[in-house]
C-alpha cells in the first residue's frame, strides 16, 4: 500500500536522506526540516520501500505536506 510521510513541522526542507528504491524501517530518519534554523528530524512511520521523493532542499513546508511516498510491506 502507498503511504506518504508528511512534514511534522513547518519550515524549509533541509534535506531528504533516503533515495528512491531504499528499503526503510519504522522510525528511521527520512528527511530533515529546517524550522526557524533548528533542524528537525522526520522519522518514517512505516516499514517499506521509498517509491517517490517529493520534497527537495529549500522547499517550503507546512505541517502535513507529503515529503516522500513509500510502498509499505503490509
Amino acid at each position: 500500500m502507498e503511504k506518504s510521510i508528511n512534514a511534522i513541522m513547518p519550515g524549509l526542507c533541509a534535506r531528504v536522506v533516503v533515495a528512491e528504491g531504499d528499503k526503510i524501517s519504522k522510525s528511521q530518519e527520512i528527511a530533515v526540516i529546517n524550522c526557524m534554523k533548528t533542524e528537525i528530524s522526520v522519522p518514517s512511520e512505516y516499514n517499506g520501500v521509498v517509491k517517490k521523493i517529493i520534497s527537495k532542499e529549500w522547499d517550503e513546508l507546512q505541517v502535513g505536506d507529503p515529503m516522500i511516498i513509500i510502498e509499505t510491506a503490509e
Partner: protein
Amino acid sequence: MIKKLLIANRGEIVSRIIRTCKDMGISTVAVYSEPDKNMPYLDIADNSVLIGQANPLESYLNIEALINAAIKTKSDAIHPGYGFLSERGTFAKAVEKAGLIWVGPSSETLKKISSKSYCRHIANKVNVPVIPGTLKPISDSDAILTYGKKHGWPLFLKLDKGGGGKGIEIIKNEREIKEAFKRAISIGKMAFGSSDCYIERLIKNPRHIEIQFIADKKGKCICLGERECSLQRRCQKIIEEAPFTDITEQERQTLFERTKRIVREIGYTGAGTIENLRDADGNFYFMEINARLQVEHPITEFVTGTDIVKWQLSIAAGEKLDCEQKDIKIKGHSIEARVYAENPKTFIPSPGSISFISLPKNDKNIRIDHALKKNLNIPPYYDPLLAKVISYGTNRAEATRLLIAALQNCRIKGIETTIPVNLAILNHPDYLAGKIDTKFIDKILNH
C-alpha cells in the same frame, strides 16, 4: 550624507535602523518576503518593496532583487543588518558596483576576513594572543592526529568560513577524528561553501568577552567597551551584559589596544566586534571578528550613551569619527535578554500567530527592540528571535532587577517564548553572584 537607505534584512533590526534614520533625517526603504508582508515596519518605512518568496535564497539572500529594489526606490545606500548577507563580500561588491554606499567594511576586507584562519594569522602577526591551535587550514585528518598527539585532547575542529555555532566538532580522542572531520567537511560544503577546517585547543570554563569598536575611513578607531556573552545554548547567545564585572581597567585597556592593532592591520572600517575568550586563569585570547552590527549592540549603547547605527551611517558616508577614545565613558550596567519563539523546556521552535501582545513601554531604563504586533504571523522560515529586552541600571543588581520586572510584564500569546528561561537564568543565585560561563545554561536546565 546618505539620503535614502535600504535595509536588506527583516525583523527587529529593521525597526531599530529605521529609528536612527528618522533621527538623522534619512529616508528608509524596507524590503520583505511574501510571508513578512504584515511586518509593522513596512508602514513606518518611507517605501517598502516585495523582494521574493519565503525561501531566503529568493528574498533576503537574493542579491539581484535587493540591488534592484535599491535602484527602483532611488536609494543611495544599503544597510545589511546582521545575519543573511551582512558579512558577504560578494553582496558588498555588488552594492559598490551599483554605485551605492555599503554600510559596513569594504567588500575586499569582508572577503579577506571571511577566513577565520586569516584573522587568527593577522592577530598573531600583531602580537595578539590567539586561542592555541593551527594558524592555517588543515588539509587532512592526519593533521588532527599529529596535533592531538602533541598537545593532547580534547580539541575543537572549526570551519574556516563557519558561523552561528555550526560545524564545530569536539574531538575527545583519536577514535573520534575521522567521523568528526567528515561531519565538519559535509556541513562546511553545504552551509558555507568551504570545507576548510582549523584546530583550536579547548579553553576550560571560558568567558566570552567581546570588544565593540568603530573605525572611520581616516584611520581612527575607538573602542566602546566590552560585552560579556557567556550565556549561550547551542553556541547561540541568550543573555548578554556590559560591562564585564570581572575585568580591571588595565585589562580593558590592553584589550582595546589589541583590538586597535588588529583593526589597523586589516584596514577595517565601520562598526565591528572582536570576540575573545578568557580562561580560568584570566588570560584573554582572540577568537574571531564579527564584521557587522551585532544583535547585542544595545547594551553598549546604554552604557556608553551612544548610537552605533548613527556612527555606521556617517562613517559609511565618509565622515570622520566625531569623538575620541577618552570621551567614551562606561557608566552603569546593561543586560539584554533575547526572547526566542521556542518552547522554554525543549527549545523546539514555535512559529505561529501572535494572538495577544502587551510589552512594557520604553524609558530611560528599559528598551525593547522588536517588530511584533497583534495577529502578526511568525513564519517558520527565519531566525526565532522575537524581541530583545534590554535594561539599564546604576549597577548589575539594579539592571537585573529591572530586566526581571520587564520580562514579567511581557505578555505574548499564541506562540511559545523563552521568557521563562530568561527569568530562570536571571533569578539563579549563581547568575546573581556572577558565577557564569558558557556551560551555565546546560547546567541549570539539566537540574
